[in-house]
C-alpha cells in the first residue's frame, strides 16, 4: 500500500517500539483526540475538528500511499472512509492507559 520502492520488513522490536511511542503520544494528545471524536458525535453543531482531521489524514494518505491500489482508493473514497477513520481515532482513544500499548498491538495484529 505504501508509495515506496523499499521493501524492508519491520523487525518485531521496532514494531513494539513504534506501538509504545504511539500509545505515549495518544496519552498527551487525548484532549485533541476526544475533541475530534466529539465533533463526529455532534457533527451537525460542530463539524470543524472532524473535517480538519479527515482532510489532513486524506492529504497524508495521498502523499505517502500508492493511490493506484484498490485498498488506498477505498480509504480515499469519502462515502465509505468515515467508519475506518472513526475506528482509528477510537483505537487511539482507548489505548491511553498504562498497558494501552498492549491493546494497540493486539488490535493491529488482529487487523
Amino acid at each position, binding site marked *: 500500500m505504501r508509495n515506496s520502492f523499499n521493501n524492508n520488513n519491520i523487525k*518485531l522490536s521496532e514494531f513494539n517500539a513504534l506501538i509504545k511511542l504511539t500509545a505515549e503520544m495518544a496519552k498527551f494528545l*487525548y*484532549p485533541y*483526540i*476526544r475533541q475530534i*471524536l*466529539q465533533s*463526529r*458525535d*455532534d457533527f451537525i453543531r460542530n463539524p470543524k475538528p472532524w473535517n480538519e482531521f479527515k482532510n489532513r489524514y486524506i492529504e497524508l494518505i495521498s502523499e505517502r500511499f500508492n493511490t493506484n491500489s484498490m485498498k488506498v482508493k477505498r480509504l480515499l473514497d469519502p462515502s465509505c472512509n*468515515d*467508519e475506518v477513520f*472513526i*475506528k482509528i481515532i*477510537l*483505537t487511539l*482513544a*482507548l489505548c*491511553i*492507559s*498504562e498497558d*494501552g500499548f*498492549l*491493546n494497540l*498491538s*493486539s*488490535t493491529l*495484529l*488482529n487487523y
Partner: protein
Amino acid sequence: MLQNKLLFNQSSVSLEINGLPDYSNNENQDNISIISQWKLMIIDKPVIEGNLDHLRSIMKAFYSYSITILNDENASYNSQLIDIKPENCYTHILLLKSSKPNVKPLNIRIGNSVFADIINCFDQLGFSNKVKNIYSKEFKSLTNQKHSFLKYKKNISEFLLPPVVSLFSIFLFSTAFIYIYDNNENRSLLNYRNKLVSIQSINKLL
C-alpha cells in the same frame, strides 16, 4: 465511621468510589478495599450507581464491548444487568436493568467520546493503588486472552515455523546429494582399481 471517597475523572465522565480500608490487613487509611457504593456520573445523563457486583459486571460489559468493536466483531453485549449495542458507528445504546423490582430499564445513548472517557475512568480505577478487589476472575481471564493471543502470534508463527521448515528441507536435499555422490565415488574407485589390475596383468604378460 467515616468512609473514604475516591474520584476518577476523565473529561465528561467522573467515577466516584466510596468504601473502607481493610484494617485486618493493616492497610493504609486512605485505601479502599471494601467498596460500599460507586457512582458513574456522565454530563447530561442520569447518575448510574450500585454495589461492587454491579460495578464488576458494568466494567466487564464495557471492556468486552470495546474489544469487540476494535476487533471488528459483531459488537453487542447482553447480560442480566446491562445491554450495550451500537446504533451506528459513532453512537452506542446502553440499556441498564435495575435489580430492584418495579423499576423500568434505563436507556442511555452515548457517543464515542463519552464511551472512551468511561473506559479511561475504569482504566484509572483498575491501575489505582488505592482501590483493591476490583477485578473478578472472569475479567482477568478476559485480559489474559488478549495477551496470550499476542504471545502465540509472536512465538509460533513468527519464530518457530519458518526455521524448522527450512532446516528440514535442507536436511532432505543434502542427504539425497550425499548418497548420489558416494555411489559415484565408489564406482570411480572400482574402475580405477580394475584399470590398475589390468595394467599389472599386461606388464606380467610382457
